[in-house]
């Protein structure tokens, strides 16, 4: 079934490299999100897989079929790739009614008239837009247009569905609703979804695997929780998670393959990993997720810099040794500015990044020495 394989795919616009040497396997029925800041090459990647853009180099396979190969000169048109594409600004045809928009693709497949009627009606019901059947796109709201676009894309039952920031034009509430619906659709339609977004929360909540891209280069390709817990490098660590991970400059001294002494925040701690270090550098950045910093008790001390209660949880910012440390606390609490509080670093999720290469080389727990 449609497993998508990208091998050494590169896209250059003149000299500018938009996507560089991308290798990726998308398994059947996965829900993949391409995540990265604006301009990093997500849209380009998606359009290359869909066949709307021609890669400069590389090979793309969908299912058993090679749809693009620069060496063999293969380049299948999008129409032959059995895909659906949901455009960011919907691209509904303004001169066709909602019904005509949805039916168009089925006509191209030479479906019989009554089957088209049936399928379109089914789609209209599924997306809850039956009453707009005879309207033109300009007579619909953003959310309704969005639903029509989804219906149009899904009607021919594509095996793979590509979506380019489909929710970015909707308001926050509608966006949440549509997210839930997309996740349901994925289960209901049995298709592979490839979804582009620059919103890390959207990427994390929707996907079975997240593909992080920076300046055209793949950074990490893993399930959301892995990306969150074991970011491959500082960029990923910084991009994923809100509030962002604490990243503190430090100095490390290797004791053995799984132990090290680390100096940071004016303290010296023992670092203990479960698996041997992947590599080692004395210059490190210590990455700690805010939820691993527990305030009120513990061997460390800091001064309250700011508290940001959000109802369910509170972000507490501490000043420690002239650095700002972010911590999360469940429930709404408030502290006085400047108050001294104790805190602890818990769990076995503290990460050591190589300060020179920015790559993660160790993960483990820390205990205070002094």
């Amino acid at each position, binding site marked *: 079934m449609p497993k998508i394989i990208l091998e050494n795919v590169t896209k250059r616009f003149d000299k500018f490299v938009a996507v560089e040497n991308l290798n990726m396997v998308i398994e059947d029925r996965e829900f993949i999100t391409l995540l990265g800041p604006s301009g990093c090459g997500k849209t380009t990647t998606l359009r290359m897989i869909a066949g*709307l853009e021609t890669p400069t180099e590389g090979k793309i396979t969908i299912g058993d079929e090679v749809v693009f190969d620069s060496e063999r000169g293969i380049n299948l048109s999008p129409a032959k790739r059995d895909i659906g594409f949901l455009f960011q*600004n919907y*691209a509904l045809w303004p001169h066709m009614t909602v019904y005509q928009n949805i039916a168009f693709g089925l006509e191209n497949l030479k479906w019989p008239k009554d089957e088209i009627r049936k399928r379109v009606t089914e789609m209209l019901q599924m997306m809850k837009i039956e009453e707009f059947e005879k309207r033109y796109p300009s007579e619909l709201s953003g959310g309704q247009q969005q639903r029509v676009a989804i219906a149009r894309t899904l009607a021919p039952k594509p095996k793979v569905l590509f979506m380019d920031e489909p929710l970015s034009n909707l308001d926050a509430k509608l966006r949440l609703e549509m997210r839930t619906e997309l996740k349901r659709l994925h289960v209901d339609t049995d298709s592979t979804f490839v979804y582009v977004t620059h919103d890390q929360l959207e990427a994390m909540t929707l996907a079975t695997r997240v593909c992080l891209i920076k300046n055209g280069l793949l950074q990490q390709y893993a399930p959301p929780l892995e990306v969150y817990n074991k970011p491959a490098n500082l960029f990923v660590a910084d991009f994923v998670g809100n509030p962002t991970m604490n990243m503190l400059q430090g100095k490390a001294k290797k004791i053995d393959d799984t132990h090290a002494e680390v100096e940071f925040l004016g303290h010296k701690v023992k670092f203990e990993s479960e698996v041997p270090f992947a590599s080692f550098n004395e210059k490190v950045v210590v990455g700690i997720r805010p939820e691993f910093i527990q305030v009120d008790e513990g061997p460390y001390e800091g001064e309250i810099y700011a508290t940001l209660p959000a109802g369910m949880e509170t972000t507490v910012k501490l000043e420690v040794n002239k650095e700002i440390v972010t911590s999360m606390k469940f429930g709404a609490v408030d502290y006085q500015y400047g108050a001294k509080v104790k805190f602890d670093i818990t769990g076995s999720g503290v990460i050591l990044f190589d300060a020179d290469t920015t790559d993660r080389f160790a993960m483990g727990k820390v205990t205070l020495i002094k």
Partner: protein
Amino acid sequence: MTEIKKQKFKNNLKAYFSKPANIITVLFLVLLIVAVVIPLFTLLIGSFKINGNQEALYTGIPDGSFTIAHWKELLTSKDFDYAQIKFWDPLFKSCLMSLLSCLVAVGFGGTVAWFITRSDLPFKKFISTVFVFPYIMPAWSMAMFWENFFKNTAINAGKGILQAVTGICVPESVVYGFFPCAMCLGLHYAPFAYILIGGILRNMDANLEEAATVLKASRLKILTRVTLPIVMPALISTVLLVFSSSISAFTVPFFLNKSSINSGNNFISISVQMRSLINSGFTKGQGYVIAIVLMIFSLAIITLNNWFTGKRKSFTTVTGKSGQVSLVKLGKARMVIAVILVVIVAFFAIMPMVSFAMESLLEVPGDLSTFTLKYWLSTEPFEGSNKGDTIGILRSGIMWAAMGRSLLLSLLVSLIAGTFGILIGYAVSHKRGSKAASLLSDIAFLPYLIPAMSFGAVYLALSYTKGFTWLDGSFFLLLLVGAFKFMPFASRTGTNAMLQLSGEIEEAAVITGTPWWKRMTRVLFPIQKSSFMSGYLLPFISCMREMSLFVLLAASYTTLVTTVLQEYSRTGLTQASNAINLLIIVFVLVIQYVVNKLTGASIDKGVGG
């Protein structure tokens, strides 16, 4: 009670006029009604009364009295087939000619537009730059070029380029009359079609086509079911505007109307007919009748246009947000098509100028051994002219005076039209959707649809009216006519540019207490500078090369360079008229180039918006 009501009314009025947009709307509505609508009425009345003694003599009805004689005679008289020959035939043939020219313009311009915006054709820059030359040139240039190129000794017209190079003599019907008129107008308006259609194609979201590709539609189906329907409003607009411009075009049929009556190629267009009727003192009223008929055509056309473009299938979603356009790969045909297009485009853009230069330098057309600079530099007096011109145009004081006057006129016209355009654009964009705004933008566009000759005729009629006779033949009259005739482009450009600015941009300045004129000059104008400058550029160019509009109005002491050209041409000194034409073209091209480089303004911005 009534006192309170009065006070309330007063307050409302005060509130209404405290907004600059409202002041401008009211001001311009009044101004345009006075300047455009009232003269139209004058014309209408002129067609229903006896205008002057000669007409009284001719019709046997006292001067000034109300009559339907003009309408009746021109439309129905069977004496010597008068109505048939003077009205119905020219009208019918002019319609045919306009249809043919639409076909040429849309076919040629549309094809080039598609290649430029949607394919990976090479040399796009060259093609798109040079392709608009024929539109920048005076309308009759193409006609003069056509004549220069195809004329031959077999029809007693001197040796043209084609004959000189290949020895081929084409029949007279190819050189003069109906066919070349349609072709020349079509070629002249092809860039116009290119700009309008290309603008839509460029703004059209490529995703719309890609969405169809993904849904497995074939190339042909995408073109017929998606691209064409979306481009259709622009296509229809183009057809209608080209049709209305062609049917009222005067100069082209005038220049190409040289065949002998007996040859059967004699083609009098409806506008040429109008001119000859108006110019004769006996039939002014009948000329006004034609002017009104042409205007009814135009009004029908704008109504049709609004009807076509204003339907439910709003095309506001044609936004052009997606940056990525996948261009159609032409494959092996790429180079072939490019070379063909470059050759054709260069031929119609550059050859005319070459031919004008050649013609102006040869005593006997087509004979290189008769090379002479006489028609540029000689100080010999020119016998045919009753105004004391010299044969060498560069030495002719009258030519230079006319050139200076044309320049001054164009400059003033562009200043007035451009500024009015910006103001109208401001008012219309601020009151978007209101009745007053749409009325204002409609009336401001009206002069475009009034054929230049009729527009001239309107003011001519006005200048003969009691109380306005001081206008007759004055420079001010030319200025008035020019400013209003060329305002439509400026107001379109101004409106489009203003609509692109979000309201917040101005509001941000309002909050800081910036006065209105400062918001205009310091905030709004700089942001859309190149668009607004286009609103100045287009009236300038149009005015500089305009003839039909002024031909009825310019008196001997207000001659313009185009009327001087016409004088040389009428008296048979084709070398000199070619020379002047070349001078005008080079002049306009240089100005348009300089302004474009300095401000980024361009004529496609002006027309396409």
